[in-house]
């Protein structure tokens, strides 16, 4: 048997990795503080209100994380135009023939686990596969829902134009009640995608031994050399 050579390939550039981890941190922080806002724990205390401010701090963290969330979102949008081919916005709109074929392939062999007759190397995905690309599009739309409803709820407390820009959102939804319900529900949808995402990353790392997990830290993935000859 001849040697199997693996090639190291730089895929996730700095801005993508920075976006990824700050975004993850924001979602975690926003969820924890969001739950505290939705259902604050009971604290029995004889203290005067003037001595405490914890709920204000929780909300402060939520809103600060929200701004960071938007900031890295803008960074990522910029990088979807300025970055390499794996970061490009076209990855997230896999609606051409190649994309649809890839989607079918992923569904058949990765999700439904139907064994491949003749495992072709060209079906090994280097960046995002088409299903993942679509999932991240959904994630982006949900993030927009969070930003629009969140900043819409926040707009009345704000003094500068950015949050005020979203004041029309609760009005269009009929009021803060509905905006809050949607904000809360979308959080669950985000976690739905996060769970599936984390699982599938681990799955691919395990199945394909390509360094999928560490790639979001180092930026590198590993592929058989032949994968590139075929291209």
């Amino acid at each position, binding site marked *: *048997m*001849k*040697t*199997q050579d693996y090639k190291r390939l730089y895929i996730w550039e700095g801005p993508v990795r920075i976006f990824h981890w700050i975004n993850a941190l924001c979602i975690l922080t926003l969820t924890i503080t969001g739950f505290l806002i*939705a*259902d*604050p724990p*009971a*604290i*029995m*205390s004889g*203290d005067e*209100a*003037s*001595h*405490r*401010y*914890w*709920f*204000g701090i*929780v909300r402060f963290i939520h809103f600060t994380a929200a701004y960071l969330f938007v900031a890295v979102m803008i960074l990522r949008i910029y990088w979807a135009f300025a970055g390499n081919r794996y970061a490009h916005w076209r990855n997230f709109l896999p609606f051409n023939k190649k994309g649809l074929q890839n989607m079918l392939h992923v569904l058949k062999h990765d*999700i439904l*686990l139907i*064994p491949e007759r003749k495992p072709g190397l060209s079906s090994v995905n280097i960046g995002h596969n088409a299903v993942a690309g679509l999932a991240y599009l959904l994630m982006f739309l949900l993030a927009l829902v969070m930003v629009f409803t969140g900043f819409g709820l926040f707009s*009345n*407390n704000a003094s500068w134009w950015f949050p005020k820009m979203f*004041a*029309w959102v609760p*009005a*269009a939804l*009929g*009021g*803060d*009640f*509905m905006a*809050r*319900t949607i904000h*809360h*529900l979308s*959080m*669950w*949808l985000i*976690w*739905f995608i996060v*769970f*599936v995402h984390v*699982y599938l990353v681990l*799955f691919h790392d395990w*199945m394909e*031994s390509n360094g999928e997990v560490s790639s979001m830290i180092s930026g590198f993935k590993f592929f058989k050399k032949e994968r590139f000859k075929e291209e």
Partner: protein
Amino acid sequence: MVKSDKRETYFDAIIKMGYTRRDFMKFATFMAAYMGLKTSAIAQIADALENTPRVPVIWEHYQECTCCSESFIRSDHPIVADIILDKISLDYTETLMAAAGEQAEAAKHATMEKYHGEYILCVEGSVPLKDDGQYCCIAGKTALEQLKEAAAGAKAIIAWGSCASNGCVQSAYPNPTGATPIHKIIKDKPIVKVPGCPPIGEVMAGVIVHVLTFGTLPELDRIGRPKAFYAKRVHDSCYRRPYYDAGLFAEHFDDENARKGYCLYKVGCKGPMTYNACGSMRWNNGVSYPIQSGHGCIGCSEENFWDNGPLYERLTGLKGFGIESTADKIGMGVTGAVAAGIGVHAIASAVAKRKAKRAQRAEGKTNEEELKA
């Protein structure tokens, strides 16, 4: 009820009623304060009331409980209820007018014809649209017919209360009568929404005096509510707000925290989502308001407040999913399903790809040996 041809001004009528000029100026000052206007507006209001002829008002009642009228006639300053509406301007209102039956209808029609395009139409209540509108009929006509007829010649419409502004309790799921707010029916007239169940009497006075004296609508927000009264949430002017920020909450209505006057958020206060002036103007001539009396805000001035989850808990309710299902329960269900799916997939893939893994491992070993060699 139809007035003589010589159109008297509000001032004339007020003086004729036995009020003094001093009372009149006090009234103008009150109104400017209600409307949140500058002191210079006092003179403007006085001037307008002295020089413009009275504006006729038709006040319709559809599917409602009359709490708006009740609230209004109790508003702080006697001139409001007494003079502006009761004695001078109100040409038609089933509840307060002396005439009844055909006489009342005749009065209304006379006003509608004589002052076509000039009168103000006030609407209390929602309009049922289901089953040909048979759930609310007045003088042999459905509320829908009545509304369309009255709105045709109106200069502007004031939608009193949550019923006329957003449907209120009658439109609660499943809305058996098809109760519909005014702005969804009348599209071609300026409409002011004054939601609340009921709205605060002084707010109603402020709105109507603005419309009558200036002949224009007050500044409205995106939803169509006067900004002067609905720009802030109850939460923003709530005197318990420091407890909210400190995270000190009443857990039950009868606990120590409730006695200490802590924030009512956890017993269901909807103040953080409700736009109304309760915290600043208060009720019954500024005596108190629900939160001051120990009860959370139920969000009575917000669209769909009835269907948006329980009144005494902080839950995210969803109408149409059954009373008990909340966003969190759905979320947990979905998450559980995902976890189960992941489990099944992980096991299945472990089985399905065992062979592939074995081949990979063998490949790796050969590789190592080749490299060593």
